[in-house]
């Protein structure tokens, strides 16, 4: 018997760029490279569950080989993160090595290593972009999620960069329920340092899954955010991460499409290649840069990426009038909330996400990544969002209601 194969979608000739991007590119446009899982902080919503260094981390020589390959593939810049990338002792060497090989670097940092000398060094280097992460426009809001003292560290780094005459550095904010009301304050703070504001969407990835219910913006806040973006979109960067909001009406500027495995991917600290920085899970693991053929072979030939490079033709969303605007939203957000990948985004602004979440099987176990480098012991200045850990109730407690949550 001959199996009937589904018709393979052929890439169209001409037409809109977004339709081309659905079929993937020969090399990523937006490549994120997390250099280390080590981090001095323990942010409650860390997308990569970072904290402790992985002993299998790529060596300096291996990292240089990745850069050589990116140069050959004409990946013109990489977004470097972690963990906290600057705690890698060879970070500054790798930065220079990349720039010397036509691979520009945008790196995200909590600012811990950006003293006056480093700030001056960065200001004197072309082709490097720095973004300092903040979780709140005030120490109070920031430190609850990023840890005590982290606001002071970040603003000191911003001050050092501004004093050194650094141009075009960024303040990077993940928008949450607690800071969405501070967008104007973030803008003012950023302007004060002569920097640029970058805001991105909070996803239930890594430790973000643990606090997503508590921290993701409400539907009302989503609409406020959308209005703010329409009014201020020209002046802020978004990494095109809010495209799910485009279903509210006017499209937001940028690429309104999930780029996972198509134009975006992640190289993690041990060289594993995932479809996107928010998808550190074995289901989205395409290969490793240490494998034969290196990164290029993973990008061009992995089965997973081939699967991701076709337009979505089925599922509930394709029947929605707004499908062309949001394209079903964020793959990682659906996956880590236990929703089907061809259905609505959990934050679908038309409300289908909430319906889908409510309709989940009560028994559903949301997928968890087995990759977790979180600190196991106490961390200095631990975030307070989750409160002080309670003493677990024991079976021998006298109360017959021990362990039962009373509301």
């Amino acid at each position: 018997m001959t199996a009937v194969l589904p018709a393979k979608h052929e890439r169209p000739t001409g037409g809109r760029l977004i339709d081309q991007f659905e079929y993937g590119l020969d090399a990523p446009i937006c490549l994120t490279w997390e250099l280390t899982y080590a981090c001095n902080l323990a942010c409650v919503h860390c997308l990569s569950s970072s904290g402790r260094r992985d002993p299998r981390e790529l060596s300096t020589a291996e990292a240089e080989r990745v850069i050589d390959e990116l140069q050959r593939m004409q990946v013109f810049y990489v977004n470097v993160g972690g963990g906290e990338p600057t705690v890698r002792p060879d970070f500054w060497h790798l930065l220079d090595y990349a720039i010397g090989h036509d691979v520009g670097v945008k790196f995200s940092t909590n600012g811990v290593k950006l003293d006056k000398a480093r700030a001056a060094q960065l200001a004197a280097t072309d082709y490097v972009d720095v973004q300092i992460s903040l979780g709140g426009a005030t120490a109070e809001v920031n430190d609850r999620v990023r840890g005590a003292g982290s606001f002071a560290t970040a603003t000191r780094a911003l001050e050092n960069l501004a004093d050194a005459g650094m141009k075009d550095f960024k303040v990077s904010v993940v928008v949450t329920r607690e800071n969405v009301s501070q967008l104007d304050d973030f803008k003012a703070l950023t302007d004060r340092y002569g920097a640029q504001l970058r805001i991105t969407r909070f996803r239930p990835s890594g430790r973000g899954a643990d606090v997503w219910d508590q921290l993701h913006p409400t539907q009302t806040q989503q609409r406020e955010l959308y209005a703010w973006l329409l009014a201020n979109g020209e002046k802020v960067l978004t990494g095109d991460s809010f495209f799910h909001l485009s279903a509210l009406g006017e499209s937001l500027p940028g690429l309104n499409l999930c780029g996972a495995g198509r134009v975006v991917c992640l190289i993690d600290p041990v060289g594993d290649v995932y479809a996107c920085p928010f998808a550190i899970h074995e289901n989205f693991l395409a290969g490793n840069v240490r494998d034969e053929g290196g990164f290029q072979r993973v990008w061009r030939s992995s089965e997973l990426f081939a699967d991701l490079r076709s337009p979505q033709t089925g599922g509930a969303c394709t029947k929605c009038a707004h499908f062309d605007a949001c394209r079903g939203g964020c793959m990682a957000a659906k996956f880590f909330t236990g929703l089907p990948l061809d259905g609505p985004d959990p934050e679908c602004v038309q409300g289908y996400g909430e319906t889908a979440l409510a309709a989940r099987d009560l028994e559903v176990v949301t997928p968890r990544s087995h990759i977790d480098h979180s600190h196991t012991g106490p961390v200095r200045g631990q975030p307070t969002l989750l409160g002080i850990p309670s003493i677990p109730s024991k079976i021998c407690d006298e109360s017959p209601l021990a362990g039962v949550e009373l509301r």
Partner: protein
Amino acid sequence: MTAPAAPQAAAPFDPALPWQKSRSVALRPEPFGALVYHFGNRKLSFLKSKLLVGVVTALAEHPSVDATLVACGVPEAQRPAYVKALADLARSQMITPRESA
């Protein structure tokens, strides 16, 4: 790597004059055309057809944009669209005026 170009205003686009791909620009071939990256101003753009890639590459060999379009065999009906695409590329300094014809 080439030194980033000093920030400067883009020259007004005149298709009767000689142009060329900026020296700070790299073309990365893609199935639909090419990705264009300017190392100086870090702008990213896309050439949406292979014919347009051919035109941008050939600019340096012809005395004007108009002559390049003819030489590359761009159908007459499509030439206004190509001139518009090239004007956009000039605005982001992906292509720059050439001194001698």
